[in-house]
């Protein structure tokens, strides 16, 4: 029987997913608004 692995065989954490997308967020998954950045 055909089976699709939605994770592609890897248990990707949030940070791995974002890193693979080339995102460089604060602590991997946090965005800041202008005031917080300052």
């Amino acid at each position, binding site marked *: 029987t055909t*089976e699709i692995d939605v994770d592609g065989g890897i248990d990707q*954490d949030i940070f*791995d*997913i974002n890193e693979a997308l080339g995102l460089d967020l604060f*602590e991997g*998954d946090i965005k800041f608004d202008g005031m917080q950045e300052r």
Partner: protein
Amino acid sequence: NSIIGDNYRWPHVVPYVLEDSLEMNAKGLILKAFEQYRLKTCIDFRPWEGEKNYISVFKGSGCWSYVGNLQEGLQQLSIGANCDRIGTIQHEFLHALGFWHEQSRSDRDDYVSIIWDRIQPGKDHNFNKYDDKTSDSLNVPYDYDSVMHYSQNAFRNGTEPTIITNIPDFMDVIGQRMDFSDYDLQKLNRLYNCTSSLSFMDTCSFELENICGMIQSSDDSSDWQRLSQVPAGPNTDHTNMGECEDSGYFMHFNTSAGAVGSTAILESRILYPKRGFQCLQFYFYNSGHESDRLYVWVREYTSAHPNGTLRLIEEIKGSPASYWQLHHVSLNVTSKFRVVFQGTRGSGSSNGGLSVDDINLSETQCPHHVWHIRNFTYLLNTSPAGTAGRIYSPPFYSSKGYAFQVSLYVNGTTDNPFNLAIYLYLISGANDDQLQWPCAWQQGTMILLDQHPDIRQRMSNQRSITTDPLTLSDSSSTYFWDRPDKVGSIASFPNGTTFMRGPGSGTSAFLTHQRLKSRNFIKEDSVYILLTMEDISHLLSTQPSVSPTFFMNTSSANTIKPTFNTSATTKSPMRPTTTTRPVTTASVPLTEEPEMDVPDSCPDNPCENDGVCIMVDRGPECRCPAGDDWWYMGEKCERKGSAQENTVIAVSSTVAVFVVMLVVTITTAVCLKKKYSQVKENGESLNLEVNRW
């Protein structure tokens, strides 16, 4: 750790919008994540109805959130590709509610070691820690279990972990994305001053003598007994499995004595429903005779029946078995009530009786099906990795009538041997001719149950798969979720009956064996996989009819006009067109996730100044636009107020008061001076007179 500052808090009911860009599977999972918040905290989520601040969940690039309520109107939260798992969604919403990551707290070096030379160049800043002026750990101990903790390999440059836990046993614990930990909940409940939750009602494992306020009825011929073992079984309770001496109790109805038909009734305390639907879960042990019965009733109190009326919900029967079995009973009670357990002795000869333990009652939906896998340790020890070690669930039917099945790779796939792998398949069923194909927007959820006695402390592991009718198979010649007898292959049940099994979708990284052996996933050498397949096609369009972008970036809101989303009505959800009643094996009424309460537009929009009209209690109501320093008010948003206007009023009032006071002061001074001069003159002339005289 929470961000410091009350301005970062959300109201207890958080307004949200699910943008249409979200994947369907993610939409369904976001609603499931909200249910966990409703069960375990006092935070609730409601579709946006024009509130000033709300969370807009969309499919961006990656999984991310802002921290806390930024008070900026629309606040985005991204659930992108591969972010569609419940733990990830809970994690991002915890950020939005005001939480940072666990390992950034000031005392983290007491608990974990950061291996700096294993971190990718330029990524060191991700391991900063913050003092108690920046974040507050809310007086809760460091939490390796937190859903907010990095995993051991975060930002590594090679193959070695970047975080080492000072207690080695926690190496594989950090980074769990299953569910809230106990301390996550403690922190969230402290931050938001929670004292109750929306959907939790009661839990009871009969460890205390007061048996959770349950009462023995006087309208019966026998009583339930609180015991820790029965010679005919069970030998132990289910809560502690006999591991704790002088503890571990359950309630038992002895059917080995008494007359045929004798009954014992155990009633819960009075409960007050909020939502109108409940799920009762409990473990049941039958060491009596197959003719013995357990009846679950509810006693409902209404103004017409203040003493309560009984309504039978379910009759539980079956052959005696030498193990505890999990049962779910769906209730739909809207007035105050008690749950009633009635044991009845049957006509057969019994050496034991009926026992119940670990009861949980919550206002949640019950899972549709339960797959109980016994002798699990044996399976773990003997199953090879790969397809030879794969076991299949019995066949089940979804609420729409689709037949499906689940497989579990006990020792993983050959590529991933130290994990549990799980896959979902459509299989040929009795309703196939009446169903829509390819199967559209059915979300199958597979939950490996953490069998903790208290539902609030369970950290079950779950994944969901949604059938997208346009997904093509690898060969691109067929639709993946088409009729199993068209795209599947022949298979057979253990009794030899053949059927067709379609292709499967799932994950080879469902849960590591290390985590599987933690918590209470395996109890009495059993695991439970809870299965639900529900129609989520109503989530195809979830965006409100008035575009939420109206309130985005309030500083420039003057220039942004409301846009009405007409596409919501022109989209055609592919709803299955079942013409005959489908066959299902569900023994309980199946209800779906409550539909999104999208604000209805008013027939005659009475609002002025771009106010949004919504129907509240079937009446139109205007939600007026507002910015940081301006707002519209009045029934039709006809009047404008602004902070500047208020300032002008305040300043001019102050000046006016000052001028009046000045005039009064000057007048008084002048009068006094005049009076003083007169007195002085009079005094001098009197002196002269005296001298002359």
